[in-house]
C-alpha cells in the first residue's frame, strides 16, 4: 500500500516513515504543506497522514484543496492542538480520521488499515462471516456453527465493527469512537469488560477462539 506522510517535525516524520515501511507499506514523505499537496495530486495514494500545523500550507487547507481537486484519498489528521473542537474542524475540512499526538504507533497503524479497508467497499453487504461465525445485518441475528447467539444491540454493533475489520487490529479507542461514539478516554478500561462479555457469548464452548487480544494494541477477530 502506498502512503503519503506530511509532517514538519522531522524526528516524528522519520519515525513514522520507518515504522510504516517496516509494516510493509511504500511511503512518500513531505515536510511542508505545498510539497505535500503536490505529491498528493500527482500520485495515487491509498492513505495520506497529514499533520494539522504545517509550514507554507496549513494541514486543513491542504486537505480542503485535495478535495477541491476531486482527490478522494482517505486522510488521517495528526494534531498536537487541543482537541475538543479541532476534531470537528478536521473532519469538516475533508479528513476521514483524527488522531491526537502523542499517539501509539499501533493505534496509527490500526487506523490506517481501517481507512484502507473503507476505501475498497465490497458493495453493500448484508452478511458478515468469520470462520463459522455469521452475522446477518438485515435480521440482526448472529450464529456460530448454526447455533443462535443472543446479542444485546450494543454487542451486535461491537461484533459488527470487529467483523467488518476481520483480520485487522482494532484498538480500544477505535471501538469507543465507532461503537459508542465517544471521543474521550474513560478512566477505567470499560471496553475490555465489554469484549470479555462478547467473548463469552461467541467463543465459549468452541474449540477455536475467534476474538483475540493483541497485546499492547487491542483486539482482532479472525478465523485462525
Amino acid at each position, binding site marked *: 500500500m502506498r502512503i503519503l506522510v506530511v509532517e514538519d517535525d522531522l524526528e516524528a516524520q522519520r519515525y513514522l516513515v520507518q515504522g510504516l515501511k517496516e509494516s510493509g507499506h511504500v511511503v512518500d514523505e513531505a515536510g511542508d504543506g505545498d510539497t505535500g499537496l503536490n505529491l498528493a495530486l500527482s500520485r495515487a495514494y491509498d492513505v495520506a497522514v497529514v499533520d494539522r500545523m504545517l509550514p507554507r500550507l496549513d494541514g486543513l487547507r491542504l486537505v480542503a484543496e485535495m478535495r477541491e481537486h476531486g482527490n478522494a484519498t482517505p486522510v488521517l489528521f495528526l494534531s498536537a492542538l487541543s482537541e475538543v473542537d479541532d476534531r470537528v474542524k478536521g473532519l469538516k475540512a475533508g479528513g476521514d480520521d483524527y488522531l*491526537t499526538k502523542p499517539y501509539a504507533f499501533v493505534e496509527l497503524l490500526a487506523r490506517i488499515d481501517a481507512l484502507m479497508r473503507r476505501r475498497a467497499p465490497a458493495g453493500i453487504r448484508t452478511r458478515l462471516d468469520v470462520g463459522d461465525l455469521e452475522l446477518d445485518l438485515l435480521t440482526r441475528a448472529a450464529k456460530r456453527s448454526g447455533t443462535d447467539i443472543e446479542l444485546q444491540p450494543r454487542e451486535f454493533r461491537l461484533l459488527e465493527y470487529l467483523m467488518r475489520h476481520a483480520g485487522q487490529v482494532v484498538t480500544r479507542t477505535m471501538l469507543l469512537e465507532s461503537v459508542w461514539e465517544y471521543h474521550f478516554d474513560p*478512566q477505567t478500561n470499560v471496553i475490555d469488560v465489554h469484549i470479555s462479555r462478547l467473548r463469552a457469548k461467541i467463543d465459549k464452548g468452541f474449540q477455536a477462539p475467534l476474538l483475540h487480544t493483541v497485546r499492547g494494541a487491542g483486539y482482532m477477530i479472525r478465523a485462525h
Partner: protein
Amino acid sequence: MIAARSKPGILRTQAFRIVLVYVLLFAFSVTALLGFTYWNTRRTLDAQTDQIIEADITGLTEEYHHFGLPGLVETVRSRTLHQGQALYLLVDGLHHYVAGNLDPWPQISGRADGTVEFDFERSVNGHMETRRARGRILAVPGGFLLLVAQDVHDRYLTERMFTTTLPWTVLLILLLGTVGGALMSRNMLRRLDTINRTSGEIIAGDLSRRVPLAGSGDEFDVLSENLNRMLDRIERLMKGLREVTDSVAHDLRTPLNRLRNRLEESLARLQAEGTQAGEIERAIAETDQLIGTFNALLLIAETDAGTTRAAMAPLELGGVAADVAELYEPLAEEKKVSLVLMPSAPVAIEGNRSLIAQALANLVDNAIKYTPAGGKVRVRTAVTDRGVELSVADSGPGIPQADRPRVVERFVRLEASRSSPGTGLGLSLVAAVAHFHNAELLLDDNVPTGLEATLRFPATAIRPLPVPLKNAAE
C-alpha cells in the same frame, strides 16, 4: 449557555416607572397649586363682597336710627331704583314683601361666619336667570327682616368653572403623561433591547458581535461604546488565552510524541534482540499516564475558561444517561455492584454531548470505584422546579461534609482514596463541564449511606425534544 432573559412588559420597565412617578408628582403639584389659588382668590373676593355689604348695613342702620322704619323703607327703595349689584329685601314678620328689589324671600343657606348665600331670579336682557348672591340678614325691631346682599353670580360662575375643570385637567395631565411616558420608555426599551439581544448572542458564544450605535452620541451610545470596548478587550484576552493553550498543547505534545516514539522504537529493538524490556514498557506506561493527565488538565482549563468552541446542540439527557450507564454496566457487574438507570420522562437541554457524557462517565466511574461489592449505583435524570438534574448516587463511604468543597479542586485526592488509581482530576472536569453549561455541581449525602453527585442545569437550558432522525432499530 444563558439565553437572553425574556423582555419585561413595558409597565414593568424602570423608565416607565420613573415617568409614572413624575407624572403623579406633577399632577399632585398642579392640583395643590390651583387649589391654593382658588381658595385664596375666593377668600379675597368674599372679603370684598362682605365689606361692601357691611358698609351698606352701616348706612341702613344709621337711616333706621334717624328715621325709623319709614326711613329705612325709603332708603331701600331709593337704592333699588337702578339695577346694580346690590340686593335688598325687607319683609314683615310673615315674610311678606315690604320693600326691595327681591321677591319672594329666597331659599337661604346659612354660613358659619353669619353670611348667607342664596339663589334668586332676575331678568337679564329680557329673560329670567337664576343667579347667586351673598349677603346678611338683619333683624329689624317689629318682627321685620332685612336681607342685604350682593350679586356674586360672576364670581360663582368662575368658581364653578374652576371646580368642574380641575378634575379634568388633572385627568388630562395623567393621561398625557402616561402615554408620553410609555412612548418614551418604549423608545428607551428598544435601545436597551438591542444591547440585551447583542449581549445574549455574545454570551451564547459569538464573541465577534458588537452592540450597534445609534450615532446620536447620547448616553446609550456611550454605554454601547463602552460595552464594545470591553468586548474587544475580552475577545483579545480569549484569543490570547486560546493561543496560549494551543502553544502549550503543541509545545508539550511534540516532545512527548518524540519521547513516546523513541521509547516504542527502543522497545521494538530490544524485543527484536530478544532482550527483556520491562523497564521500557513501564516507561511507556508512565508516559501514557503523563499524557492522560496533561490532556485532562488541558480539557479542564479550556472548558473552565470557556475558550473551547465545543458545539452546543439540543440533546436528550435521558439518552446520554442511558448510553453511559450501558457503557459502565458490565464493569459494575464485574465489581458486583448493581448499576440502575432510573426511568424518567425525556427532557432535552442545550449542551455539548461529548462533555456531558464525559462528566457523567467520570461520576459513574467514581461511584463504581468507591462502592463496595453488593452495593448500588443509581443514575437518574429529573426535572425539578430548580432545573434539570442529572445525578449519580452510590452506596459507598461518601465524602465528609467538610471535604466536599475541596474535592472538586484539581489534583485533590482524599486520604482514603490515595491507594486507588486516578489522576485526581475527575471531579474537577465534572465541575468544569458544569461551569461551561452554567450548571451546578452538588455533592450530597445519599440515604442511607454514600454520595449523591448532581449536575443541575438551569431551566433556561431546556429545549424542545429533538426529533430523532432514525428509529432506534438496533
